[in-house]
């Protein structure tokens, strides 16, 4: 118990107001993803050619696009796809990371050496370039975008997973479980896996925010989801031709992405502190 108490990470005090704001943003995002109709009564595809490229106003908070569609409504309806891409990419990244990290840490020796080397090299590539390589091989599409962002962010997580497994493996309860005669696989499943992964829950949360930003960056370059979609990055891409006349088409959806990423990061850090304190 004393060792566990000593190992407590120092608790970082976050401003309460920040956490509350972050939680509000995340709740709004979830509502927008599940039931966008609750947040707006407009349709994301309602074209109004008498009101094209209008700046932000009381009637249209985010202004309108070149087809007179309400931008805020399009952002709200785009939430589901953006969040889906973020979750999907993070899931792929972690799947790869868990497989590589566990194999490397448990196998040790030559296998560990090879995997670690590959991960290091992949980590050396800027994630964006790795993602672009995947898109060049597979051709741009929604699935490619998710896979690309997932593969791009996997190496960083793989290092963390491997480190976690190596640390947890040393723990007394693992030794005890093995000494009690439990089968190796049971020890991994019941003790090693949950304990190694628990501190990474916060990292997953942070990862979703990161993935949304990266995916929207790819879409912004015109390499993501094709235009009719109102996915956040696709909105940015579609608005670029009007940048000299209609700033809101770029700045406001971008601001939403920034705020969501900040909110997710803030919550992730809060979670990290809580879990850090709770996990023994």
């Amino acid at each position, binding site marked *: 118990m004393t060792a566990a108490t000593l190992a407590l990470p120092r608790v970082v005090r976050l401003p309460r107001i920040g956490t509350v704001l972050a939680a509000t943003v995340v709740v709004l995002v979830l509502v927008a993803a599940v039931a966008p109709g609750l947040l707006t009564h407009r349709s994301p595809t309602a074209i109004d050619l008498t009101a094209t490229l209008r700046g932000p106003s009381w009637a249209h908070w985010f202004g309108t696009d070149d087809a007179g569609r309400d931008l805020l409504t399009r952002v709200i309806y785009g939430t589901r796809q953006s969040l889906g891409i973020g979750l999907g990419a993070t899931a792929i990244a972690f799947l790869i990371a868990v497989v590589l990290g566990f194999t490397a840490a448990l196998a040790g020796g030559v296998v560990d050496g090879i995997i670690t080397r590959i991960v*290091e090299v*992949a980590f050396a590539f*800027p994630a*964006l*370039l790795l993602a672009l*390589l995947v898109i060049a091989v597979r051709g741009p599409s929604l699935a490619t975008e998710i896979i690309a962002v997932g593969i791009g962010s996997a190496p960083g997580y793989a290092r963390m997973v491997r480190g976690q497994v190596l640390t947890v493996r040393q723990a007394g309860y693992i030794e005890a479980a093995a000494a009690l005669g439990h089968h190796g696989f049971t020890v991994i499943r019941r003790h090693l896996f949950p304990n190694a992964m628990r501190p990474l829950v916060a990292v997953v949360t942070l990862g979703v925010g990161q993935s949304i930003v990266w995916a929207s960056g790819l879409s912004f370059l015109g390499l993501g989801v094709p235009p009719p979609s109102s996915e956040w990055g696709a909105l940015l891409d579609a608005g670029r031709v009007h940048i000299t006349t209609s700033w809101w088409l770029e*700045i406001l959806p971008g601001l939403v992405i*920034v705020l969501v990423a900040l909110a997710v*990061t803030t919550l992730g850090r809060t979670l990290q502190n809580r879990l850090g304190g709770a996990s023994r």
Partner: protein
Amino acid sequence: MPTSRSNALGRFAGKVVSSVGVIVAAASVTFFAQLAVPGDRATALMNLQTGQEKKWTPEELAPLNERFGFDKPVIVQYLRYLGGLFRGDLGTSYTQKRPVTEVIGGQLLPSLTLTVAALAVAWVLALGVTLLTVKRGRFLSGLGSTWEALTASLPHYWVGIVLLVVFAVELRIFPIIGGTSASGTVLPVLTLAIPLAGFLGQVTRDEFVQVLEQPFVTTARTRGMSDLGVRLRHVLRHAVLPAITLSGWALGALVAGAVIAENIFGRPGIGQVLVTAVNTRDLPTVTGIVLVVAAIYVVANLLVDLAYAVVDPRLGGAR
């Protein structure tokens, strides 16, 4: 002390060897990624070049197979590719039908100028904010760390768009499409530098706070040294070490950011070439650029090791 010097040299030589290893591994990854293209590569290429979607006869595909060596066994292709790399041959562009080195060559300098300038500006911004705000009372410290946390999390594209709209479209201080002119370089550099400065500042600030509490700082103060003098002469030297280590990594991230910045400001560079190549699925050009970036990254990290030894003389001959 000849032995310690040869030790340092030996360590550096070891780093060089492992760097070459990293590049060979990177080349292998990119080569096998090319094999992962769905279907037959000659067919895919033929469809790409003709804009049609159909099955081609072996006779029609023969010239492409001949030209790119698709019909050879994979191992032969792989060794050829690696051998070519050592002779400085990155392959032939699918779409432009000329050597990738030629396609990239002229575009490399503007991108390097952009990233190196951004790194320099980021350091100036980060150090300025750190020196002025760390432990300068609650308000200034809070302002400094909030600024850093905020800017560090901004995506490049959004910073670029905001700068473009404010300074080019509305205020008209800088051109919207600046090319490689000096005034056209300011906004792309800031686009890359602002988020990086936030990141470097965060790292330096933590270190700075800790170093300010060290005994040698108190000693320096009791000698009657001014506050700014202590910060510049003693604290800074220690506080910048982690940020220097991260600068090598940062250069890689900057190249990625350059792709976005060049795209926003219509600035020529490998980023523009890369996006076009990804769009047209010109794999040799994409992998060529990825490898060049990997090489730059590796060289940058070697330079970081050297810079580290200069700032921290303890590392020069130690161990």
